[in-house]
């Protein structure tokens, strides 16, 4: 294989919301990279900044949200500096996105066929007949039966799983370089979830589409991801290849999260849990965001921001416990 190519670089990204109650630092200085053909998982509990990260990349932040710092490079091109016109062409064409609820992107008033051909015509000029043929091809690619007839159905006539397949078909029409999937199976039953995850893996292999898989479900991460970024309260706290995360997680939060999962393969009499609550972004402005809930918290954890330490070749962890081993190689300096 050739040298690993990078599709996306996110560098020092900070996205905040400017609300009546003050500034909410939803995404707080994060860095990560997605390689060509890889599935990168972004995990963390609700409110940690997963969706805001993806909306920042897509240029789809709601009114009150703004990228206040950092850079997003897509195949070397800056997305933070791109014009709205350029972003429109990138969206759908080169970067596609699917959401938890497919109905947020399917128009209930139009037939599936119209929406698919419309998506094709937005980005390519081709004949009606050709667009129709391509639509059928895509529906078949995502494993939908009787594709021809489906073109004449309205979204509400389909089940949740079928709608999600249509969404995936629509997002793959232009063979994007990157697919951002934000909790794509969270609203689905497990048997349907399994089908959708397998479909995404297949598309990743067949078309070499890179996938950014956002999820709160560690089972989903283990099933589809190559590498994992763990977020907590707007920050990346750990990053490593998927096996490393599951076998040798280092950050106390990652470990706590893994121990809390009720694994279907065995019964524990007591589940481990992490005490306390998930903090709201901005509620902790000093020290480690996890300190209040961390059993290893030391004095400095409450006053200094831990930087990301390089623990192993491909593993980074934001925790002072790994200070001594990795001090020389730390990536950023501690902000006072």
């Amino acid at each position, binding site marked *: 294989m050739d040298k690993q190519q990078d599709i996306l670089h996110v560098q020092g990204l900070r996205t905040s919301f400017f609300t009546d109650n003050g500034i909410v630092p939803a995404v707080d200085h994060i860095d990560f990279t997605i390689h060509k053909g890889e599935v990168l998982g972004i995990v963390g509990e609700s409110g940690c900044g997963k969706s805001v990260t993806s909306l920042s990349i897509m240029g789809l932040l709601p009114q009150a949200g703004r990228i206040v710092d950092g850079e997003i490079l897509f195949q070397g091109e800056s997305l933070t500096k791109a014009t709205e016109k350029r972003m429109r062409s990138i969206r759908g064409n080169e970067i596609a996105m699917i959401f938890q609820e497919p109905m947020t992107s399917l128009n209930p008033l139009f037939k599936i066929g119209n929406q698919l051909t419309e998506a094709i015509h937005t980005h390519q000029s081709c004949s009606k007949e050709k667009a129709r043929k391509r639509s059928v091809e895509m529906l078949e690619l995502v494993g939908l039966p009787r594709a021809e007839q489906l073109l004449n159905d309205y979204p509400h006539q389909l089940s949740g799983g079928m709608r999600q397949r249509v969404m995936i078909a629509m997002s793959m029409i232009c063979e994007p370089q990157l697919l951002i999937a934000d909790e794509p199976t969270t609203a689905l039953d497990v048997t349907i979830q399994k089908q959708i995850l397998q479909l995404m893996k297949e598309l990743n292999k067949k078309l070499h589409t890179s996938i950014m898989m956002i999820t709160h479900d560690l089972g989903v991460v283990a099933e589809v991801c190559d590498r994992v970024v763990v977020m907590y309260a707007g920050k990346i706290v750990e990053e490593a290849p998927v096996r490393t995360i599951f076998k040798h997680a280092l950050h106390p939060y990652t470990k706590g999260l893994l121990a809390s999962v009720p694994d279907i393969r065995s019964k524990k009499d007591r589940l*481990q849990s992490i005490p306390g609550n998930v903090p709201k972004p901005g509620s902790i402005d000093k020290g480690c965001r996890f300190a209040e809930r961390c059993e290893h918290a030391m004095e400095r954890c409450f006053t200094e921001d831990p930087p990301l330490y390089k623990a192993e070749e491909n593993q980074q962890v934001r925790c002072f416990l790994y200070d001594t081993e990795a001090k020389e190689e730390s990536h950023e300096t501690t902000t006072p």
Partner: protein
Amino acid sequence: MKLPLLEVNQIKKYFPITGGILGRKVGEVKAVDRVSFAVYKGETLGLVGESGCGKSTIGRLLLRLQEATDGEIRFEDKDIQALSPKLLKKIRKEMQLVFQDPYASLNPRHKVEKILEEPLIVHGIKDKKERRERIMNMLETVGLDRYHAERYPHQFSGGQRQRIGIARALMTNPKLIIADEPVSALDVSIQSQVLNLLKDLQAEFDLTYIFIAHDLGVVRHISDRVGVMYLGRMVELTDSERLYEEPLHPYTKSLLSSVPVPDPDDQSDSEVLTGEIPSASNPPKGCAFHTRCKECMDVCKTSRPTFQEISPGHHVACHLYGDA
């Protein structure tokens, strides 16, 4: 000796589908279709199955929030469908519901104290001081603080709100708690806090639980026995350990193998269930699962398999087993 607290025999709930300008009945949704099970004192019975299989409807039938179309429900050996309104009120005190979304089920305009006081008033605790005392004790029991009594639901996190929901259910000293997806909306680190709390409360107050959930991992950890439902029917029911280690029903098997396992080295792609769940208004004839079953035989397409005990404590509805 095991005593049943609750016995359910062949209950049915069919919802009419009406249509046309006259609103005539044009069909029915067989939400619950001849389901039988018992719940023993002090145990946790898990009910699992995909959305729409009838779990929540069963919960509502047990509390008589909806009337069953047919069948019998006995609580402490009393037929609850034959009870007078007065006796029904008394029995309702002994069976309480905990919901998935505590926010939707807690009045946003009431302080926690008022929310917890209401069930006490309904059930005739007249002494204001006694009510307050019980509320304060209950807050501590569920891991909240006394000062939380003065706060409104929106001032709490999701996990804390579920603690309030649980506290409210416990105010009347019930014997049976029906928890319908009580941790489904919570983050995993918080979910396990609430599951541990439910276990502690069970031991402390000698509670019996019916725990309804679609998350099979969660159900394994909390349940002594588990029932699996498909399209309004119970297809398998046995000890939790046996169900997860040696499932018999083909649907149980595929359901279990669909659950993503948190281990990248333990991924199998076998046994993906294909197709979609059929509609409950037009369930397949014979075995309701036959349209998706890899083991389907001719008999499965015409004759509904009986739900029977094929080995002690292991009930299955499938033509592959017993003499169904």
